């Protein structure tokens, strides 16, 4: 079918639009000078400065703690919930509830949690952020695992139950292995979202335990050196590598099973 040449304009414009800032960020990370505007020659200095920046290291550690913790919690709760919603109830309200954190604007969730923590007079810290991230992480895990469950073949589960296994054994031995790819995908999604999450952390973190996005926010507000470009490039590299690795691994496991 004839395709209008005109369609390619927005297509290439979209990619150019998406990548120009990225390219500039990466190129200027190797800038020998301090100005974000003038390229003064190639240098790896800013990567050195970055690695030595204690605030960034602290932020990174905090972010990883929160991300891993909230992902684990979200995966457990979310998977259980997904199975519960698919197999043990037909309530549409509960379905909607499970997705609510993903649909709600993050600002609303953030202020709600701030108000909650203040009302119960809790201390703020990594724990307050971790618990907060679990809320939306759960929604995404539940959604992803749900899609694996609906329309999935229930005959194995039925067979298991007919053979006398309790719902729990069925769950552990039959359902869970079947869900594994969905659970992994959901966990990965929850982890990715937590790492980059700013708004909720901004409202619920203590001043003494900032996450990496919070550290970056103050760097951006205070006016920056190419150190931040170096950080951006590294983040890009790490995520890119993670994706390639996951791709290779899933292809590997798929080819093995």
């Amino acid at each position: 079918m004839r395709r209008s040449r005109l369609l390619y304009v927005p297509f290439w414009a979209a990619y150019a639009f998406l990548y120009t800032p990225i390219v500039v960020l990466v190129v200027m990370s190797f800038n020998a000078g301090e100005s974000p505007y003038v390229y003064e020659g190639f240098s790896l200095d800013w990567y050195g400065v970055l690695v030595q920046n204690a605030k960034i290291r602290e932020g990174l550690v905090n972010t990883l703690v929160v991300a891993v913790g909230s992902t684990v919690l979200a995966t457990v709760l979310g998977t259980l919930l997904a199975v519960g919603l698919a197999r043990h109830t037909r309530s549409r309200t509960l379905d909607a509830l499970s997705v609510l954190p993903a649909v709600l604007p993050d600002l609303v969730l953030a202020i709600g949690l701030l108000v909650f923590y203040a009302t119960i007079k809790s201390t703020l810290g990594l724990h307050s952020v971790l618990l907060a991230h679990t809320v939306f992480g759960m929604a995404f895990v539940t959604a992803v695992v749900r899609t694996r469950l609906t329309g999935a073949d229930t005959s194995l589960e039925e067979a298991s139950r007919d053979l006398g296994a309790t719902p729990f054994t069925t769950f552990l031995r039959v359902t869970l292995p079947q869900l594994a790819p969905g659970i992994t995908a959901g966990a990965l999604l929850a982890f990715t979202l937590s790492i980059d999450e700013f708004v909720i952390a901004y409202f619920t973190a203590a001043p003494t335990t900032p996450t990496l996005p919070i550290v970056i926010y103050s760097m951006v507000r205070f006016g920056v050196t190419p150190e931040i470009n170096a950080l951006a490039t590294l983040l890009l590299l790490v995520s890119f590598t993670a994706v390639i690795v996951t791709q290779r691994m899933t292809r590997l496991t798929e080819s093995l099973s």
Partner: protein
Amino acid sequence: MTRSAVSGASARSRARRSRALGRLVFLGPGLIYLLVLLLIPLALLISFTVFRRGRFGGVIYEVTGQNFTRLFDPLYLEILLGSLKLATIATLIALLIGYPTAYLIAQLPRKWKTIALVAIVLPFWTNFLIRIYAWIILLSGPGLVNSTLMDLGLIDKPLELLYNQGTIVTGLIYSYLPLMVLPLYAAIEKLDPQLREASANLGASPARTFVSVTLPLTLPGVLTGCLFVFVPSFGNFIIPELLGGGRSVMVGNLIRDQFLKARDWPFGSTLALALIAVLIVLLLLQAWSARRA
């Protein structure tokens, strides 16, 4: 779900107990977590809308309707409408760019499809704030865009590209374009190409085919993409703050300011409620038109 034949009251009650226990184990933990850390905070927020701010920023638990009257003050209505306007513009432009992009990706051979999709999402993997910062550098007076245009002789003094509403819209589109492309792609990809061929064979022009066949069939994807861009745009405060130079106030900034500057939690909660109300209306519209499609 088949059950092996049961007989006797004890077997039935055992089954019921085991079902109830199953529900408790699977639904229990997640729902309790959401109850405590989602529903109760939201209930608190909603309850705050009827209280008032203390002298130095606490909450005084006396019921009053003043937050709601204040909501209809022209200043705040203007800010709400202004945010609606900016979010809508961003969404529409994202749609105009995103639809052709998703369409063309769907036509690509399989190998290139994945690469193209990953390429759309890849920018997402640098930190959101750093991406915004990159735009500040690009668009500022001494920035790349202006210096390139000046070097090319197209302008002789820098354009005011930064710290205005256009910059905010650009930032919004930039941040959420991938969220428009992905659902659109999913919808377009599912289309049966034979339908389009049939339409062409019947004499319809490509434009007619698009309007009468392709668009209606991909409408759910269009609506999902629009929602995915509109929701975060409408409630955004970072982009207006960093790219708007403090010269525009969107409802997200207003809410943030009530909580962190003015320390007026009751009014901030009322604004948040207004935000949710607008979104619910849009969600209902989307669900209604998705059902009709």
